[in-house]
């Protein structure tokens, strides 16, 4: 039955359609991809257009308007210093998205490079890299980031480094695994036979073929990073006030819980929404780009 299952007419049809077209088709036909990408785009636009969208100056403190509940003038209320929460949230998207995207990109690129070289050459170099990576993987979750920020100090750049660092081991591992299996493919031998250099084989032949899991991983990592950034700010080692940042806004609202819940409620809601969006997108990409699964 294995044979007949793998030869269901459904699949034969799929093979006929050209690969690229099929991928694109699967992307825009996948409701997860569409919904997730839309949510993410909304937040990106919000970050870009923050000065236009924000009704108030996010830093302006109006003592007379402290702790106002959500109302017609302040849609999401004001905080203990009389700042407009909605405006701070809109500007906060800039900090969070910029940090999480760039950290994912930097860490992802570095990890991919390490994994590519390590998996391609193998040998003692590979062993050393992998042992070092094992060491860093021994620090679970935000511990490593917390650790690095403590070491380096809490500037935005250091937070970026810390979070990017966090991505390196995972990417290196995934890339290395894919490279090792891609290395065995015949077309790699073929290109070597016609005299391609190692770097050409790595970047032109192998890398494009292993992008799918990396793209999915990067997407999910952006989501994780948003949570990590917020968590670091929450425990006081992340983005420092008065910069509007969602995690530190939750921390700031903590002592007013019971009196002015909205201060901490809305930042959490924003985090939840953007992370849900990115996770949906990640799920969709995995389904749409990944190996076709049986339904």
């Amino acid at each position, binding site marked *: *039955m*294995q*044979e*007949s299952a793998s*030869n*269901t*007419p*459904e699949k*034969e*049809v799929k093979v*006929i359609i050209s690969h690229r077209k099929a991928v694109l088709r699967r992307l825009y036909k996948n409701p997860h991809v569409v919904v997730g990408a839309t949510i993410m785009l909304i937040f990106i636009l919000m970050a870009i257009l923050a000065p236009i969208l924000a009704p108030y100056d996010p830093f302006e403190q109006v003592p007379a308007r402290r702790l106002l509940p959500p109302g017609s003038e302040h849609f999401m209320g004001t905080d203990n210093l009389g700042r407009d929460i909605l405006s701070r949230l809109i500007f906060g998207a800039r900090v969070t998205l910029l940090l999480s995207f760039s950290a994912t990109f930097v860490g992802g690129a570095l990890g991919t490079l390490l994994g590519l070289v390590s998996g391609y050459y193998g040998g003692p170099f590979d062993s050393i890299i992998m042992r070092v990576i094992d060491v860093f993987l021994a620090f679970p979750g935000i511990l490593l980031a917390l650790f690095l920020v403590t070491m380096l100090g809490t500037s935005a750049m250091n937070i970026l480094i810390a979070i990017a660092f966090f991505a390196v081991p995972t990417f290196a591992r995934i890339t290395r695994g894919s490279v090792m299996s891609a290395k065995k493919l015949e077309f790699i031998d073929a290109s070597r036979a016609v005299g391609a250099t190692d770097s050409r084989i790595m970047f032109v032949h192998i890398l494009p073929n292993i992008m799918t899991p990396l793209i999915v991983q990067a997407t999910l990592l952006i989501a994780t990073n948003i949570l990590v950034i917020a968590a670091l700010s929450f425990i006081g080692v992340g983005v420092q006030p008065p910069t509007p940042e969602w995690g530190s806004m939750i921390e700031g609202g903590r002592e007013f819980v019971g009196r002015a819940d909205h201060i901490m409620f809305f930042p959490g809601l924003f985090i939840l929404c953007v992370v849900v969006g990115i996770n949906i997108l990640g799920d969709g990409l995995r389904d749409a780009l990944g190996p076709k699964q049986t*339904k």
Partner: protein
Amino acid sequence: MNELVEKDVILEVNNLRTSFYTDEGEVKAVNGISFSIKEGSTLGIVGESGSGKSITSLSILQLFAGTTGKIIDGEILFKGENLLEKTHKEMMKLRGNSISMIFQEPMTSLNPTMTCGEQIAETIRTHQKLSKTETKLKAIEMLRLVGIPEPEKRIKLFPYQLSGGMRQRVMIAIALSCNPDLLIADEPTTALDVTIQAQILELIKNLQKELGTSLIMITHDLGVIAEMCDFVAVMYCGKIIEYTDIRTLFNSPKHPYTVGLLNSVPSHEMDSDEDLKIISGTVPSPYDLPTGCLFSPRCPHAKAVCHESMPELRVHEDGGLVSCFIYEHDKWQEER
């Protein structure tokens, strides 16, 4: 052949239709087929992958859990009772007990986390009220029956510790452990080495004789058909296009597709100077079936009429059934 005619029909399938539902639409995997098996005899169902032969076998036991497969029409009479009218519970009682099945992939058809003994015992326990020791003894006996040496030791082994041939023997032991009246073997030897294939076929044949089981042999391999079967149904795109006894099939195949199939396999029974070539083209997509005869796009003899309407399965003068206009002389001659 005559002695078989005397016996009762154990399974009769009438106008069976099974469909799968995918994003692209409905796939009529089995599209109105009928056949029957007499007690103790062997029916072969032959066809390429995608012809619906495996789906036919799954339809008999209604093994569609986890898929979108659904029987939409027809009847399956087992000992005169329509299986399609049975409740879930009644079907459960039949499966593995009166009708059992062997699958193609011995590597993946056994549960990797259970010992072989457990997997045989499970079937026995499900259908028979035996004590623990009796069940174990029965499992050992079944392993011995399928020719596994030292069965007392082997029952403790996990599937990964056995070779493909051994695993298929274990599958056969599971399938026969409750003395079924009907055994359905779905490509039981396709995944095995050639030498092992012969052994497994021999084993199935001997056990069938010994236990008097009726057998449906599903395969794409005409060699297996020649070896095992009394009757053959040739399937193409969810339909039976030729249905006859084994001798007629090999001596004078009727349908151009059958002729093509026979011709594509080197066979000592065939004249070497026969003029037919390997079947050209590919099996059509189920989402885009040709109009008229399903084989017409690939048929070397196709005429206008073949592209217009589907020939019915008719009785040929030698007793077999065939669905081809060549044998409907009135229509065929008109064309000329």
